[in-house]
């Protein structure tokens, strides 16, 4: 069955499940008619570069994408729809085995027309060491980003996606397989688009997988940001952490839903997820639903937590005694809150570059 037929064969997603509870599919769909697969979808411009210097050998952007094995198999609504509209617009970031350039590679996706969509497939070779930032920007009414991929055995990947769109809607769908003994740091930075719906799924299908999912979410003005993160432990001795920080200002609404699923047989699984929301303005809203399904008793531990609250009064007072105005102190604390996950996403080079890029947004969020 091709992707279009698969999508059309599906029923309307059930709003009783948390993936669709807060931002229903109808609101995210580019035309609002969920029985429709739009024809006129343009391909955004893609380019590969480095923060410093030339692109090293061993990493390349290739037109077209192949099938990836071992991806999580749950609700197929977003993945089948995205496959259907990106058949003509798919790319692969291919990384050679043993690649280790010590540089941050940047994949820039520039969307310009009313409806754009692209499929990016990550093929990371065995024992490769990659730091990749995917930058989504442009002025587009609706942008769809499908990312599939697998980390090669024993590889170490920092995979950071930054949303800097001028407005509009972003639908991001990730399906990533973490192979044997590989480490993946999956970072999300969201500071653009009026509406974002992310459906991020990671599966550890082989022993020894190690996943660290991080989020730094800047939610301002009238933004509506809904991130759903699924982590599947389907093999023994797998490890995952999720740390998601959202700073919520203006009249914005942020939603973080997490599903941590530990299958029977995943002995020695060690999993935890934490959602933290900093409420900056009176009319901002933050919803967190970290779900946990554990079917294995021989686990190291599985847990989750969520916390929501305003900027700490004691910390504001302390900074005030050091001569900072209340606005400066508030901005500093918001930046520190978001930076605590940002610093874990990759190298110092990448961190400095990202902070510079986001500094204006951070200042405007605190005021």
């Amino acid at each position: 069955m091709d992707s279009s037929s698969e999508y059309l064969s599906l029923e309307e997603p059930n709003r009783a499940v948390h993936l669709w509870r807060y931002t229903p599919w109808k609101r995210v769909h580019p035309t609002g008619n969920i029985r429709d697969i739009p024809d006129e979808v343009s391909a955004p411009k893609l380019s590969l570069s480095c923060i410093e210097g030339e692109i090293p050998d061993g990493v390349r952007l290739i037109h077209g994408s192949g099938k990836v094995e071992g991806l999580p198999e749950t609700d197929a609504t977003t993945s089948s729809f995205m496959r259907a509209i990106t058949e003509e617009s798919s790319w692969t970031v291919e990384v050679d085995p043993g690649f280790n350039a010590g540089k941050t590679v940047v994949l820039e996706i520039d969307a310009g027309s009313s409806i754009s969509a692209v499929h990016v497939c990550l093929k990371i070779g065995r024992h490769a060491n990659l730091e990749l930032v995917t930058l989504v920007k442009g002025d587009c009414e609706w942008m769809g980003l499908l990312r599939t991929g697998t980390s090669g055995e024993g590889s170490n990947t920092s995979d950071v996606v930054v949303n800097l769109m001028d407005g509009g809607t972003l639908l991001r769908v990730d399906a990533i397989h973490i192979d044997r003994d590989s480490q993946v740091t999956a970072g999300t930075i969201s500071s653009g688009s009026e509406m974002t719906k992310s459906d991020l799924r990671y599966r550890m299908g082989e022993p020894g997988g190690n996943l660290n999912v991080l989020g730094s979410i800047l939610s301002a003005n009238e933004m509506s940001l809904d991130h759903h993160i699924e982590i599947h432990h389907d093999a023994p001795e797998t490890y995952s952490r999720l740390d998601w920080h959202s700073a919520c200002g203006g009249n914005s609404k942020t939603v973080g839903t997490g599903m941590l699923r530990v299958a029977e047989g995943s002995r020695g699984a060690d999993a935890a997820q934490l959602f933290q929301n900093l409420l900056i303005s009176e009319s901002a809203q933050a919803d967190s639903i970290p779900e946990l399904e554990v079917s294995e008793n021989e686990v190291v531990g599985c847990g989750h937590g969520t916390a929501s609250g305003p900027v700490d009064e004691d910390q504001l007072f302390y900074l005030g005694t050091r001569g900072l105005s209340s606005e400066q102190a508030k901005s500093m604390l918001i930046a520190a809150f978001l930076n605590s996950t940002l610093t874990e996403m990759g190298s110092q080079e990448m961190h400095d570059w990202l902070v510079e890029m986001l500094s204006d947004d951070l200042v405007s969020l605190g005021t």
Partner: protein
Amino acid sequence: MSQSNEAREAVGDYKAGWHDPENSTIRFDFGLSEKVVRDISELKNEPEWMTEMRLKAYRHFVERPMPTWGNSEILDGIDFDNVCYFLRSSDETGESWEDVPEDIRNTFERLGIPEAEQKWLSGVTAQYESETVYHSIREDLESQGVIFLDMDSGLREHEDIVKRYFGTVIPFSDNKFSALNTAVWSGGSFIYVPKGVSVEMPVQAYFRINAKNMGQFERTLIIADEGSSIHYVEGCTAPTYSTDSLHSAVVELIALPGAHIRYTTVQNWSNNVYNLVTKRGVAHENSKIEWVDGNIGSKLTMKYPAVILKGEGSHAEVISVAYAGAGQHQDAGAKVHHLASNTTSNILSKSISKDGGRGSYRGMAKVMPKAENCRMNIVCDALILDEGSRSDTYPTMEVGNASAHCEHEASVSKVGDEQLFYLMSRGHTEAEALGMIVNGFFEPFTKELPMEYAVELNKLMALEMEGSIG
């Protein structure tokens, strides 16, 4: 072999799994229809408004689809046409145990209810199948104006109060099972505590299903007037049959300003009972509602005690434990809605899954935009004791006010090898050690129970742990 011995052999360790021969005075045919609803109401000689409400609820029940969340696999197994919706075992409610038919009295004696009543209770109501068969209240409480009646008598004798509050906390349209309960309710408790009266010792209700394929739909309404307090305890058991029974209750609590209601449940239905219960309380200014909820039995429990914090300064407390053994799914949890400023809530949930059982926590914690300075704290701990068992946590936290401090944490783990080793090095067998660890795990719940219940629960859990290792 006697009938009760046969039953005991069939039910194994479930001590309350025997059944008595059925001696009903009125028994409806299986199945639900508008006529059944009208007949129940007519039989009870109810006022017209109640009949109308029942009929509206019935129509809503028929139209409303089954919930698609939760364990649909088990839930869809309910055959509503194969349930008896009304069965009267005794023509009147006894005020002394001598008035209760002998076979029913024997049942409650075996369950230890009359003994407990003498020792530590302010009042007792005992429901057998659809209706209350025994009811008593201490005279001194009665003289202070405390009303403690079965719900049918409450409607007859205090229609004005019932009409004012019935269905205001949980309307029939709330969910499919609240609609079912409103349509066919029978029995349950009606309590009114006057202003400033503090009921020191708990009142207890005991619910027993005896017949096969029985549906029990009790309805409880507790109103604690300003500055009053009450502790209500309920227990439930049923015989083990190869066919399923249905228990679908609705409990409404109203804590008026400064009042305190504690509602304790020890649910130990046999493993052929669907336990689908809606419990909710409204807390007014500076009042407090506590749900202490233990779920040990049943095939599928879906129960999420809720508190609406409507008045400023009100507080909600939910302590919930669940034990899910073979073939059981305990889908329990809690809901708290902070509607007013300076409201606080604490939720503590603990569950144990064993022998392929599944324990789920499902919760909703919500702070409304106009509720300033609210605080909530939710902690869920789960133990999985063996292979094939499962534990889930589905919490939802919606925070609409920036001044709120909200925290949730959950953990799933196994019993620590070092804990077992330590206790065994002190001379305990593995089973004893595990029993002690499990009782310790449940301690925050058991310490809130009246002593007799706590002792009984500890024994029950130790029994459940036998043979679970090695």
